């Protein structure tokens, strides 16, 4: 049942790429399978996860929220306390170590919210690898602080001006770079999607999240009823869910970006009938496509969820019913952000705040002897420029004007 390399998950997955990318992907597949069964490699990975990333990340019993909601016990996996502020670094570290092992000194990556870019840039600095990050121009504008940090780590950040100028276009650009430079370059893809072996590899490197949750819950003597997390491409979800996907329990809920509402172009939800089976960017999954097969525009207040396709394994788990998908809107995410900050002293990333709100909804339907675990995949510091504008526009504008004037 459980295996390292699957290629397909039911009808989803695969390696639908132009021939030029076949040899690098074939090479990556064998290097990945080989590395994960190498004890020395895994020892080094776990050593750096502990000393550099700061693992294990805590599991917080959100007692105030639990009391306030009045349903199930609510726990928060504080994945956002990992170095660089989100789960992204687990995979970035794993793949960068793999690249080094493969003798590839140059790393390229795509980024949406910037978290994967920041994590990759940091890890490359740590391991002495050259790093270039492709980022959509729109995303660069809304996540400027992350661009600053990536450059601080010594990475080159390249704006992508093609297409919708967001995450999917950054992926296209990175694939193009890789096509030309695979001899010395590893493409460090940040989500559990793309051509195989990426979905399998990203899940494996992220599975440390779920593995820790299992032992942390067991130390507390808690059996979870429900796990809830946000789903953009699906890397945090696959990592968080991975120990449980072959079991029938607990209930697993993935939360997609409901954006401004269900109208075309207003959201980034692919499940529950909104997406269409398609083949885009090297894999078969569910995508937001028009009748011709063109990729449609998406929207979310959180750049990390603003992507038209969902990882193939999650699409499959949605189809089999093992993972249930729900949506939270932009305004619900902002509400969740404020709620957890005030009640629990925890600032969620906007992406993760989507999951927070759905977890509260679900907890209300359950009883105090049950438990809901939320994966706070990232912390919210990075969103300052978005949330301040959304929640405190006047004073924020005043501050920015003053700052700009003083420059």
């Amino acid at each position, binding site marked *: 049942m459980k295996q390292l390399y699957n290629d397909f998950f039911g009808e989803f997955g*695969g*390696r*639908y*790429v*132009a*021939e*030029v990318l*076949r*040899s690098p992907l*074939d090479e990556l597949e064998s290097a990945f399978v080989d590395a994960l069964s190498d004890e020395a490699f895994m020892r080094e990975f776990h050593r750096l996860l502990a000393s550099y990333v700061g693992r294990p990340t805590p599991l917080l019993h959100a007692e105030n929220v639990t009391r306030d909601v009045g349903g199930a016990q609510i726990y928060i996996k504080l994945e956002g306390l990992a170095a660089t502020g989100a789960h992204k670094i687990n995979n970035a570290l794993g793949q960068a170590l793999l690249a080094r092992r493969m003798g590839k000194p140059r790393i390229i990556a795509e980024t949406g919210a910037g978290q994967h870019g920041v994590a990759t840039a940091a890890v490359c600095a740590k391991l002495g690898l050259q790093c270039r990050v492709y980022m959509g121009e729109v995303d660069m504008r809304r996540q400027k602080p992350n661009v600053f940090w990536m450059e601080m780590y010594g990475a080159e950040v390249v704006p992508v001006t*093609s*297409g919708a100028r967001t995450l*999917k*276009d950054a992926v*296209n650009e990175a*694939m*193009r770079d890789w*096509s*030309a430079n*695979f001899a010395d370059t590893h493409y460090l893809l940040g989500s559990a999607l793309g051509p195989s072996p990426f979905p399998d590899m990203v899940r494996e490197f992220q599975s440390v999240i779920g593995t820790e949750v299992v032992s942390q819950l067991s130390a507390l003597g808690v059996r979870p009823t429900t796990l809830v997390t946000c789903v953009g491409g699906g890397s945090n979800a696959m990592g968080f869910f991975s120990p449980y996907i072959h079991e029938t329990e607990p209930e697993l809920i993935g939360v997609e970006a409901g954006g401004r509402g269900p109208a075309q172009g207003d959201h980034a939800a692919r499940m529950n009938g909104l997406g*269409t*089976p*398609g*083949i*885009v*960017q*090297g894999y*078969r999954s569910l*995508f937001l*496509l028009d*009748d*011709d*097969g*063109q*990729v449609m525009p998406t929207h979310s207040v959180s750049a990390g969820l603003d992507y038209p396709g969902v990882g193939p394994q999650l699409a499959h788990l949605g189809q089999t019913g093992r993972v249930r998908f729900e949506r939270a809107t932009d305004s619900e995410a902002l509400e969740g952000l404020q709620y957890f900050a005030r009640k629990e002293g925890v600032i969620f990333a906007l992406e993760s705040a989507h999951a927070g709100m759905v977890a509260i909804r679900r907890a209300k339907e359950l009883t105090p002897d049950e438990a809901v675990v939320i994966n706070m995949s990232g912390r919210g510091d990075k969103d300052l420029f978005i949330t301040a504008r959304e929640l405190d526009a006047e004073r924020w504008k005043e501050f920015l004007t003053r700052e700009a004037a003083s420059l």
Partner: protein
Amino acid sequence: MSNTTRIMAHVIPWYPDRAQSMDAVRGLVDAGVSYLEVQFPFSDPTADGPAIQAACSDALEAGFTVADGFAFLDEIRTITDTPVFLMSYASLIYRPGVQAFVARAREHGVAGLIVPDLPPDYDEGLYDACRDAGIACVPVLVATSADARVDLALSTKPEYVYVALRTGTTGSRTELGALNMGFLEKIGASGTKIFAGFGIQDAGQVQALAPHCEAAVVGSAFVRTIAAASGSGVYEAVKARAESLLDAK
């Protein structure tokens, strides 16, 4: 020698708009190109370089739909018998169903399909559907393809193979080095006809390729010509460019 040089000319319907893209086709046909490669624009063309990607974006913004693409092919049929190969990406072929798309391509007189992200082992039935419909399915290989990949492509017994000469995507100047030439010889020895391209800019390259392939594919060069001539005589500019590429001394 110039009468033996053959070009497969790449064109994007609705770039920069419907009328001018048809002007480009006329210019190419009148210049005497041997094959047309008509690319249906896709929103996320990962195997194309920046020039062609930008042109595809423009075509989509100009309102291109797949139905328009097939109407464009019908119009080409009214002006020439030059064989037309339809190039696009998996998403457009898979969305209506591979068999349905292939049947439609056949109805509209397409000689063959080129779909780089549906290689023979992840083809969704494309190769069989083309065989059943009696049109060519053209595998795309690169000079760095491993032997097993070459053998797999040739095992489909293709009438044509599309060889991307340099590693990378379209649009950069290609050096026709020993690796490329050796690869073309190897593929040619199988008896299949070769379309060889990516990055061809001048008549000398077309001439150098001539003995090694059925036709040299020219894409980005025409896109640039069309961009420069848009609004001021695309027909003349494209015709002159194609003639200059064919006129090898």
